[in-house]
Structure formats: structure tokens, C-alpha cells
């Protein structure tokens, strides 16, 4: 966006101030965003010696962990996102109901917003570990007789389940905040009208709230899906070697095997998946122009 591409409007002296203010951020994004993004594709199509080849991609695909990592990551994304959306919507509806102490509820629901993936993972380890809180509580209440091994490497779906719960706890807040902001822009009269005509809560959600929330839903879904594709510390803390996710493979190739090219191939693959997911959301939930705020 150089100044030379801007036509002189003739009426007023052109104001350079905004361009000067934007330059530092553009240079920074060019150097630390565009360049590495470009480089991840360059590295992916090179051998460690810098020769152009498909070898790194071949190595990535041939690795025994390739399909398991993709399967686990996509499974988590597909299960976590709908649950998270429902939970975030429930929280947002409670906030929007303006019960007594709204600011307290909002604060509590927003708490995980600042909690790191790693801390969140360990929090749920303390709950799901064999001698942890869940088994303690279930046994004290007499619901089970012996502690259940939740983190068993043999039980894939239990591992997926506990990671889903941890992710719902950790990462729903951001969706909730976006949805609360979206709900506030729905005029109260619409909901009251629906209520007066006897619409149930479910009908109001389905017929009034969700359609009007579309712009917020779009943003919330794109943000969360991209973050969910990068799931890392929660999965590692809870599942250990029981399952592997894409970020973990990326890291393993970068740090343990010390092959930046294969790691970059993973990074490029995750980039592509994020772009596809974004396009998918934009296609499934198109926002009409008049709805765009």
C-alpha cells in the first residue's frame, strides 16, 4: 500500500499521516508473518541441503505417525467445536439474560481466557489421573469401586474424550465473549416479540438468535477452528504418548529429529488446513452485506 498507488484527489492536500502510522506494522507483518509463511512452503519443498525436491513431503507422509496425527487432530476439531459452540451459546444466553451479578458471571466464564494450554492440560491431569480428583469423588460417592484409568493409551476414545472436556473448559471463553458481543447487537424488541407470540427458548434460539448472530458465529468459528487445529499442550499433557497431534509431530521433527524441512512441511499442511477451514466456514455461513458491522 505505497503512497504512489494513491491517486491525488485534487481537492485537499493529501494527508500522509495515516500511511506513516501504518508503515511500521506493515513492515513487521512482512518480516515476521509473510516471510515465514512463504518460507514454510519453500522449506517444505526442499531437502535439508537446500535442493528443491518433494523428499521432505514424502518423508512426512511416509512417517508412521502421519495419518494417526491427522486423524487425532481432525477428530478433536470435529468433536470439540460443536460442543464448544453449544457451551459458549449457553454461557452467552445466561449473560444476556442480565441476571443479578451479570459482571460476576461474565468474569467467571471468561476466566479461562487467560489460562495457558499447558496449565489447563495439567489442571485436567489432576482430575483424570488414576488417583486424581474424578476417581476420588466417584469412589467417595460410591459410584465406582475402583479407580478408572482415564488416561489409558489403550483406550483411544477415552483419551479423545478427556481432551475434549479439557478443551471445552479451556477455550470456550473466547467464543462466549464474541457471542455475548453479538447478542448485544440484537434489538431487545425482536426477542420480546418472539416471546410475546409464545416462542419457546429453543424456537427463539433457532429462529431469531442464531440467524442474527451469524456474523459473530462466523468469526468465532474461524478463530476457534484455527486454534483447534494447532492443539498441542493440552493433548500432550493429558494423553502423553497415547495419541499424537499435528503440532506435536511438527515439534518432534523440528526439535528431536532436527529436520526443519519436514517440520516446515507439517507447518505448511496445517496452514493449508486452516485456509480450507476458513473458506469452509465462509461458505457455510455467508454473511449478507447489510449484516456486516
Amino acid at each position, binding site marked *: 500500500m505505497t503512497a504512489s498507488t494513491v491517486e491525488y484527489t485534487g481537492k485537499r492536500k493529501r494527508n500522509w499521516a495515516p500511511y506513516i502510522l501504518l508503515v511500521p*506494522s506493515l513492515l513487521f507483518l512482512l518480516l515476521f508473518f509473510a516471510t515465514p509463511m512463504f518460507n514454510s512452503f519453500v522449506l517444505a519443498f526442499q531437502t535439508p541441503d537446500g535442493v528443491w525436491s518433494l523428499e521432505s513431503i514424502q518423508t512426512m507422509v511416509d512417517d508412521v505417525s502421519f495419518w494417526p496425527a491427522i486423524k487425532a487432530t481432525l477428530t478433536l476439531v470435529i468433536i470439540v467445536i460443536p460442543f464448544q459452540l453449544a457451551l459458549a451459546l*449457553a454461557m452467552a444466553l445466561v449473560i444476556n439474560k442480565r441476571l443479578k451479578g451479570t459482571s460476576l458471571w461474565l468474569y467467571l466464564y471468561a476466566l479461562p481466557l487467560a489460562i495457558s494450554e499447558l496449565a489447563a492440560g495439567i489442571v485436567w491431569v489432576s482430575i483424570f489421573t488414576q488417583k486424581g*480428583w474424578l476417581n476420588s469423588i466417584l469412589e467417595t460417592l460410591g459410584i465406582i469401586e475402583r479407580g478408572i484409568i482415564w488416561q489409558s493409551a489403550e483406550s483411544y476414545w477415552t483419551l479423545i474424550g478427556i481432551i475434549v472436556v479439557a478443551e471445552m473448559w479451556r477455550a470456550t471463553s473466547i467464543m462466549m465473549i464474541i457471542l455475548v458481543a453479538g447478542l448485544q447487537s440484537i434489538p431487545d424488541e425482536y426477542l420480546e416479540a418472539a416471546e410475546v407470540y409464545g416462542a419457546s427458548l429453543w424456537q427463539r434460539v433457532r429462529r431469531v438468535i442464531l440467524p442474527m448472530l451469524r456474523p459473530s458465529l462466523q468469526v468465532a468459528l*474461524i478463530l476457534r477452528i484455527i486454534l483447534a487445529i494447532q492443539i498441542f499442550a493440552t493433548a500432550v499433557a493429558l494423553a502423553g504418548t497415547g495419541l499424537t497431534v499435528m503440532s506435536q509431530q511438527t515439534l518432534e521433527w523440528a526439535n528431536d529429529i532436527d529436520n526443519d524441512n519436514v517440520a516446515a512441511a507439517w507447518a505448511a499442511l496445517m496452514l493449508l488446513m486452516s485456509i480450507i477451514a476458513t473458506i469452509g466456514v465462509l461458505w457455510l455461513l455467508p454473511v449478507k452485506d447489510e449484516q456486516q458491522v
Partner: protein
Amino acid sequence: MTAPAVSVESTQAPPPPRRKQTPRKILNTFLWYVSAVILALFIVVPIYLIFVSATTPDANVYDYPKSVIPVGIDTDNIEAFITAAGVIDAFWRSVVAGVITVVLALGIGAPAGYALARYVFRGRDGYRLIVLSTRAFPIVILSIPLAVMYRNWGIFDTVWGVALMHTALALPFTVLITSSVFVSIPRELEEAAQTLGCSPARAFLRVSLPLALPGLTAAAIFTWVLSWNDVFAAVVLTLRNPTLPARIMTSLTQASLPWQYAAAFVMLVPSLIVIFVIRKYLLGLWGRVVK
């Protein structure tokens, strides 16, 4: 916790006049409160449990079944974690990386946010689109090619390298957030100062900046926490000089459970304080990012 009215309440029209309270209505309200409490418990109980786990006295660490009511509060675990090799150093590195990130992200992002808020110019929408679309990319993954670039530049395994990556992570948010902060300050105030003889720069420094300060502080605090929380980029970009999450992550598999609990506790405390401090701005910070 008597927090002052948040924007949830303040931005809404006054509630409609009360209608007659039928038993059905009362039951309905009651059910809303029950839902509010259940959802809050889902968030709060795990935090309570990790605090109990981290402060359980050594003798009771492996008790089973554990008692939800603390048997005693003890800081042995937390002390053992803090005194473990490299943890204090890693802690300070995390603090410093966070501070550098805040300075860079605001120093670079706030002017852009100001430009978006105050000027109408060619390319404004294009710039917004660039910033918005950066959110459609898994930025943390860019640390892989960055590690290669850093080795050439000689900043691999340094706090600066980590902070630059974190700045890239935070910048889109900083731009959008600061822009929404400046939008909320009437430009007429600045113009009035200029008609009274202030230069544009002086009008900004003396009028807009003081008014924007609370919002900018909230943005700064949240930027710091983004940096404090990052694990993946820090693990990729450091080796012998890890940040705190990187230090914990790399020894996670060998670490005892009480050590992990203490680690989670130490990472959690600043996060909870941060959300408390910026609670009034939560919707402003994130909600407006939508638009």
C-alpha cells in the same frame, strides 16, 4: 466481588417495565440462575482443585481417595518447583519476553490502530483486510520457518527471538483493539485542542492519550498474557534459554505429578489476576474485535 457495572449492563436499553410475576415466570428465572451456577461451577471447580492439589502437604500428596476439603495448606510443592533447576531463570525470561512483546506490539500496533480510527484514507479497507486475514492463519506454526531465519540472524534461543514471534502473534489483536479504543474517544476533543493552538502531536499526547490510557493498559495486559501463555513457539525457538512454559513443557514427561501441579499453579496465578484486572474491558477487548 462487587465489580462495577460492565458494558453488558451499561450498553443496554433500560429494562422494560416489570410484568406480573406468574409462578411460571419465577420458575423460569430460577432455572436461569441454576444454569448460571452450573456453568460457573464447570469453570471454577477445576481451578479450585488445582489449587488444592498444588498446596497439599507432602505427606498427603498420594492420599487416595483425595479429600475435596483441603487437609492442610503447604507451600512445599510450590517451593520445590520454583527451586528446580532453571525455573527461576525461565520465569524471568517469560516476564521479560512479555514486556518486550507489549512494548513492541503497542509501539507498532497502536499507531496503526490510531490511523484506522482517526483517518479516512485510500487503502484503509485493504489494510483492515490484511490485519483481519492474519487471524485466519495458525501464527504459532510460523515459528518453524522463523527458527531457521533466527539461526541466520543469531537471535535463536534468545528472549528477543521469542518476543518478536509473540509480537507477530499479538499484533493483529493490538491493532484492532487500539483502533476500537481510539474510536471511542471523540475526535472533536482533539480538534478543539488544535483550534486552541496545540499541534496535532501535542493534541494527541495531551488529550487523546490520557483518555485512551485505561483501554490501552488493558490491551497491554492482555498482550502480556498472550506471551506468558505461549508454549509451542517458545519450545521451538529456544533451547538452553527457555521461557517458563517451555521449561515446564520439556520436562513434563519426567516430572512428578506434584511438581506439575505446582507448575500449573504458578502459571495460573498471573492469568487469574490479569482477567480480574481487565474484567471491565473483556467485552470491549474481544467483542469489538468482531467488527
